[in-house]
């Protein structure tokens, strides 16, 4: 069974992101880049499916500039068999739909039985590519997956998705697209052997023209980025606990009108 995992490289969660000189993108100086955390759950799950079945191939794919090779290399170190890097200036200002189109073109070429993605990339927080990819392929899709099981003959995946108030379990005929939620699994750390082995694995560079795609204008464009307005200075309520608590409740009621 062939599984494709779509990942994104994002700034580490501890990054203090700043607006860049163009006012539309972030200042990337000094940023530590990581594989978006939700995508790691997707990679881990793909590897577990392959291990459980005792055969198959896991292909990591990502769209972005040269630095993204490093993120793909981490996926190979975790155990993915090979990687595809969508690396073209034509994709320098892609929105989720253009990303989904590029991914869909690769999926059509590669013909995997399952595509796994993370719930959302923690940079633009759009959480859209998984559903958009499913739509473009005409495949069923389940979001925010907390558990999954592919049946023995590889025809169906049973997936539990998180919704308000509980879990809903669905059978999806394969091929299908799933979006991983935190809690699905605990991603492994690459072993030294995995890291060494990753250096020999293939990362294929793919251009838009290879997929029959040209540059297309983004359907959603960023007009500008700005820092959040600073919050007004707060106050520390002094005094012993009983009087501080009383004063807090009074202030919440009378000054802030929050309760």
């Amino acid at each position: 069974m062939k599984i494709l995992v779509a990942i994104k490289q994002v700034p580490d969660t501890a990054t203090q992101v700043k607006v860049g000189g163009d006012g539309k993108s972030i200042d990337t100086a000094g940023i530590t880049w990581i594989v978006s955390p939700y995508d790691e759950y997707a990679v881990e799950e793909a590897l577990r499916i392959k291990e459980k079945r005792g055969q198959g191939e896991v292909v990591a794919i990502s769209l972005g500039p040269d630095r993204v090779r490093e993120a793909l290399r981490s996926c190979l170190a975790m155990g993915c068999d090979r990687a595809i890097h969508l690396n073209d200036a034509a994709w320098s200002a892609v929105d989720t739909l253009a990303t989904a189109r590029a991914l869909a073109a690769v999926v059509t070429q590669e013909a995997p039985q399952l595509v796994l993605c993370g719930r959302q990339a923690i940079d633009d927080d759009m959480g859209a590519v998984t559903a958009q990819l499913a739509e473009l392929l005409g495949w069923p899709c389940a979001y925010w997956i907390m558990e999954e099981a592919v049946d023995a003959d590889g025809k169906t995946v049973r997936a539990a998705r998180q919704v308000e108030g509980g879990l809903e379990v669905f059978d999806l005929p394969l091929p299908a697209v799933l979006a991983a939620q935190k809690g699905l699994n605990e991603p492994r750390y690459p072993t030294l052997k995995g890291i060494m082995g990753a250096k020999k694995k293939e990362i294929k560079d793919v251009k838009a023209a290879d997929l029959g795609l040209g540059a297309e204008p983004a359907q959603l464009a960023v007009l500008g980025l700005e820092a959040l307005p600073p919050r007004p200075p707060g106050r520390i309520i002094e005094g012993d606990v009983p009087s501080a608590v009383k004063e807090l409740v009074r202030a919440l009621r009378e000054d802030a009108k929050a309760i």
Partner: protein
Amino acid sequence: MAGAFWCIVEDDRQGRPKKVMAEILGEAARLGGGPVEAVWLTDKASEAGLTQLGELGATRVWLLENAAYAPYRSEVWSAAVAELAARESPRAILGPVTSRQREFLARLAARLGVGLAADCVALAMDGDTLVATRPVYAGKLLARVAWARGPWVATLRPNVFRPADAQGGRTAAVERPSLAAPTAQMTLVERREEASTGLPELAEAEIVVSGGRGMKGPENYVILEDMARVIGAAVGASRAAVDAGWRPHRHQIGQTGRTISPKLYMGFGVSGAIQHLAGMRTSKVIVAVNKDPEAPIFKIADYGIVADLFEVVPQLTTELKKLMEK
């Protein structure tokens, strides 16, 4: 004539729209870019629910009632709404940020070949176009975005937009359009309900109380739940508490959890790691209780108490109970 602003109904699965719909309908009316209409996909609507949508300002309800629409499947919903949109040419399609609408509206946007702006916290008409403001990097920055063409598809964050006032006597025309029979590839096996705590959902709650590493263990969250019950709050947690296995991930606030904007956030034993602050700093009022006066959360708190949370919480619950009983 400009096309309508469609508001996709989020319901309680019992035939009634959720409270957040007042915010979506209210914002659509405030924008004034076109008639406000509701689109409701459900297996069974209620008369009361239709009345409610009218009172909240929907001039028309597109009622798509079919057993195939519940539980929602994005493949089925997007086909239905795309078919209707092709006929009616709405100007905008808006919905609240919920697990299903985030997926569905993304899929619909792809089907329509238009842009999607998820988790918006402000919308404005700029001449003839819509401009949306949305947090990125879990709220560390704000992005202003615009669409190349319509319909403009967006999800709106709960608790941010001013709700419409229900006005008795306002009614919506109910249309039951005939659409192609739904076809679904995926089928429901079972639904596992969570044991109800009687507390609101984290994403929708107006008040959130949150516990961090300072809670010391999972058994201590009961004191936060007691307080939450008194004031109708949801209980959240920091990543440290979730990673320690004290609370389920759906309670996590921050960059790898929920990003929230309640009217009141109260953090107990939460230090305020950057990725947690990103997830709650747009709360209207922030209260922090922590033993450590250097905890970063105090930098963004409106009110802080430097003390042991195990002393503060029971007393605070008592005081809040007194206030609520007044």
